[in-house]
């Protein structure tokens, strides 16, 4: 059973407020130069891109490289322009995607 990403949003947000969004996802972020217990090199496998959209519009993006730690934690900010739902997408080498949605409680 893979771990579900964790998203931390403020409980409520006002229009015009700049909020912090914290995301955490389970992933080994294999560099491609480690040796496994069988002695063979473990193939590179990264989550290479992280995208966050809010109300259908991209609000933040990150390109992750080998220098990013395993189980990536990313915190970023967004100015609240109106109500909406976040969609977070992590894309792995090879194209597999992890997606997580969470609405923002705008007051």
């Amino acid at each position: 059973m893979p771990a579900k990403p964790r998203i931390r949003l403020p409980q409520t947000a006002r229009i015009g407020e700049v909020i912090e969004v914290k995301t955490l996802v389970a992933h080994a972020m294999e560099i491609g130069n480690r040796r496994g217990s069988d002695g063979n090199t473990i193939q590179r496998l990264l989550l290479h891109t992280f995208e966050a959209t809010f109300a259908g519009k991209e609000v933040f993006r990150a390109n992750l490289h080998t220098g990013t730690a395993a189980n990536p934690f990313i915190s970023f900010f967004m100015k609240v322009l109106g109500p909406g739902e976040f969609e977070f997408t992590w894309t792995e080498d090879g194209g597999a995607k992890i997606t997580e949605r969470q609405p923002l409680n705008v007051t």
Partner: protein
Amino acid sequence: MARDAEMTDRRAVIVGLSAMATSAGWANPAAAQTGPSDIGAVLKTLVGDAVPVEGRIALDLPEIAENGNTVPYAIRVDSPMTDAQYVKAVHLLAPANPLPRVASFFFTPQSGKASVASRMRLAQTQEVLAIAAMSDGTFYMHKRPIKVTVGGCGG
């Protein structure tokens, strides 16, 4: 391995870096940070022929990492973040890693502030480099030394 017992003076590094940058030292891998990676080529792709200026970037980083596998950091770039003037991207590099790129973060005016926090890997003691790409086409940079130590019962 923690080979650098002496911490490099941060101001000296910044001055040194500026000198290197203005003399186009970055384009020459041999003049860049010691390490297996071609940092010159990476910088070329990120800033082209532009010369990054020291400033505007605050890089929150420990002075020693007890382990290089997870090193917490936060980057904040000073900008009004308006449609007219904002930070487009921040790139973080660890030039002495086997591959120097850590992450690139892309902002919009709606970001509100150009501020991110994450965790990086550092293969050895080195100076990490943050570069900010501004909406007007200029670049800022900031460099910070960090020691990475060998640890644990197994050395």
